[in-house]
């Protein structure tokens, strides 16, 4: 290990010491929060919203796992159970995972990373939060007034004709929330195109921006299609228009096409931002430019693009034609390539790096491991002959939880820890954070790995009761879920604790190179004290001044 000579123009920020105004203390009135157009405050509003929905969705998940502890349906009635898994899916997908990284971390970080004072359309940004909340209110009303039991996939004609639950109200909730997603994506696209700081060319952009950009494209182009599909379901319920009802000449499979056209790319809405977060964390905590930066950047776009052409792999046993199945299967395998490239490049970045195993790095490494597992088990499902057996079983459930929980949530938590000092101006406590990260990793694997096995044995998903020979796996799964739940509660505690008692964060506690660290923590309302100019490629750690490198890690990081 050598230390490079100090370059001519070091990346160096000398934080102006307090007292000073930041975006948090500039005004304490509730109105100043509810009417704020500051992207950082809106990010906090989103953080509150999605945390609320995460807790709700998590409670549903625990109810499901408790019910499945025994083969008989002894805790919940069948229709209660059906509503539980439906609402778990709806809340987690539409109200937690999709907005999680983009709307919270993205909202906070994107404008700062591009070196702008705010997103391109701040009022639109606030509007999209209100739209999100409005959609949430509709959905919550549907839930408390009896719930919905169609599964989050809303397959017709069950959803459009046969279900006796609040499908229309929930559909309105999802439809409305979709607009929030669209507007957020639109804001990011315009901000990344038009508001980058002088010198911040496309290929100097941090990888988080690339992944958010790719995500935004999916949000803008995919969401409207599921919106129209949901409108049609709602209209069919209300007016019997017959579009998806075979008894009236409609085609129920058409709904699946429209639904998966969005909902498959939606998986990438959930996981691409996590990939971006992981790239940032790995770069910072290895002090390295991500190996193969350009290819990693472009692979995000590739995933977004290919993701639009693979939806039919959800329908291999729906009766679609043999040739459609072949094409969709073939294309699906191509998503594996950019994903594999990313994983290999992250791994290569570690080689001869200067690695600091702080909590965000724990999450990033956990992400890589679980995402690799999730991605590779995706090959089972893309493979036609294998999918016939494992689709609609717990194998699927395990696979997508590896992507969405093992992938997306690990990335989200990693990002929250990584940017926590910037967001709050406080350091979280490193020891409990590491314990929680470890518990989450263990609990997660214990919950979902057995589901691969029981899925292959043939246990169908969405079963309230199951044959007794599957019990052993379900017991393991429920045990794991309990550990996972504990793992998720711990961060809630120490992060809240840190708000008051945490060590004050410096401007750049990790010694990172991206622009958001070149301003005080927490940042002032206008983000930067003076407009930043970029003179380096992304992740040029040799440009950091020795003060920045040395100043913030006395000894080991684990002494929080």
């Amino acid at each position, binding site marked *: 290990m050598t230390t490079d000579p100090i370059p001519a123009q070091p990346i160096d920020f000398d934080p102006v010491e307090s007292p000073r105004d930041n975006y948090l203390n500039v005004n304490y009135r509730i109105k100043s929060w509810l009417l704020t157009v500051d992207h950082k405050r809106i990010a906090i509003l989103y953080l509150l919203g999605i945390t609320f929905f995460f807790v709700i969705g998590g409670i549903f998940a625990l109810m499901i796992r408790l019910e499945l502890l025994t083969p008989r349906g002894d805790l919940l009635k069948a229709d209660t159970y059906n509503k539980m898994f439906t609402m778990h899916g709806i809340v987690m997908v539409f109200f937690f995972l999709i907005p999680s990284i983009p709307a919270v971390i993205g909202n906070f970080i994107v*404008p700062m990373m591009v070196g*702008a*004072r*705010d*997103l*391109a*359309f*701040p009022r639109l940004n606030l509007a999209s939060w209100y739209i999100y909340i409005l959609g949430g209110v509709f959905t919550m009303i549907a839930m408390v007034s009896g719930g919905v039991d169609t599964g989050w996939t809303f397959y017709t004609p069950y959803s459009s004709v046969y279900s006796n639950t609040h499908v229309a109200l929930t559909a309105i909730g999802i439809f409305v929330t979709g607009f929030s997603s*669209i507007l957020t994506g*639109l*804001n990011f*696209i*315009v*901000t990344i*195109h*038009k*508001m*980058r*700081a*002088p*010198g*911040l*060319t*496309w*290929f100097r952009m941090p990888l988080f921006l690339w992944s958010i950009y790719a995500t935004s494209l999916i949000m*803008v*182009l*995919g*969401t*409207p*299609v599921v*919106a*129209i*599909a949901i*409108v*049609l379901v709602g*209209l069919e319920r209300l*007016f*019997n*228009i*017959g*579009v998806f009802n075979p008894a*009236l*000449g*409609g*085609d129920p499979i*058409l709904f699946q096409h*429209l639904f998966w*056209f969005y909902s498959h790319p939606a998986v990438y809405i959930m996981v691409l931002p996590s990939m971006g977060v992981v790239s940032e964390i790995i770069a910072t905590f290895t002090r390295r430019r991500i190996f193969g930066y350009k290819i990693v950047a472009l692979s995000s776009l590739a995933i977004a693009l290919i993701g639009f052409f693979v939806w039919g792999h959800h329908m291999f046993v729906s009766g679609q034609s043999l040739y459609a199945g072949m094409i969709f299967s073939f294309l699906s395998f191509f998503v594996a390539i950019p994903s594999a490239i990313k994983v290999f490049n992250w791994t290569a970045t570690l080689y001869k790096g200067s690695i600091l195993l702080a909590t965000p790095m724990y999450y990033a490494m956990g992400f890589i491991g679980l995402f690799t597992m999730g991605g590779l088990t995706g090959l089972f499902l893309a493979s036609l002959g294998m999918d016939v057996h494992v689709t609609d079983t717990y194998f699927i459930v395990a696979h997508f939880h590896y992507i969405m929980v093992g992938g997306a949530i690990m990335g989200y938590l990693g990002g929250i820890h990584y940017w926590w000092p910037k967001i709050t101006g406080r350091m979280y406590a490193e020891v409990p954070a590491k314990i929680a990260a470890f518990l989450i990793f263990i609990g997660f694997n214990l919950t979902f790995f057995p589901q691969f096995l029981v899925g292959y044995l043939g246990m169908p998903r969405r079963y309230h009761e199951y044959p007794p020979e599957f019990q052993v796996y379900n017991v393991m799964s429920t045990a794991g879920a309990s550990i996972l739940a504990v793992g998720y509660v711990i961060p809630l505690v120490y992060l809240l604790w840190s708000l008051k008692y945490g060590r004050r964060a410096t401007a750049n506690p990790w010694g990172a190179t991206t622009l958001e660290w070149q301003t005080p923590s927490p940042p002032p309302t*206008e983000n930067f004290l*003076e*407009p930043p*100019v*970029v*003179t380096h490629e992304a992740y040029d750690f040799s440009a950091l001044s020795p003060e920045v490198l040395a100043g913030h890690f006395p000894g080991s990081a684990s002494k929080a």
Partner: protein
Amino acid sequence: MPEITANTALPGSPPIPPAHEHPRGLAHQFDDLRQQKEAATLGMWTFLATEVMFFGGVMLAYAVYRGKYAEAFAIGSRLEVWWIGFINTGVLLCSSLTMAIAVYNANRGLGSKTARYLVMTVLLGIVFMGIKGYEYAHIYNEHLLPGNSFDQPSPDATAGQIADFEHKFPDSLRNGGRIFFSFYFIMTGIHATHMIVGIPIILLIAWKAKKGTYTTRYYDPVENIGLYWHFVDIVWIFLYPLLYLIDLSSHTGMH
């Protein structure tokens, strides 16, 4: 990847002017009016891309059923009043013209002229929707509202009315007919919703134009609402043939 942004200066270029020097109409997050205009325009185009996918989804579904129920769709299109669609197309094209003139005037800084043409656009839009409403009523009276009583006598009809009821679709094409009219109402309904959303915004912008809010350098809202309105117009240009012009041949029966 080509450089698209305007504000990407080379290192060492003059610093961006401080934020407090505010030209009229410049929002705080932008450096200058040019950046703001480019952002607004890109934002609107991105929004229109969303809209294209939205209408694209419903048109895809339409295409599936048009293939499946070609005969019923042809009968359905003949049940529409073709001249209503024709006149409405003209009305909407005129409204696009007045919108274009409004944008042209905004570009020249003529606030009240801009406002006048915007109001004309709104009036034409209202005429369009009036005609549309008349057509909806007509279709309703013909018992062609999709639903359980589609192409059936109303539930409270007398025995005589039931006996006299003339079905528009033969029994075996009624499902296809219902689906056609479902698409008719969904597509025109979403289209009309876009107009209903657009009209108050146009009026607001007209009022601001009249007040003199816009300058030759800053009139992005006028330009963007223009883009929106033209988009709504173009959607109709697709809907008109899809819904009205499937089969204009006279009622020769089937063969």
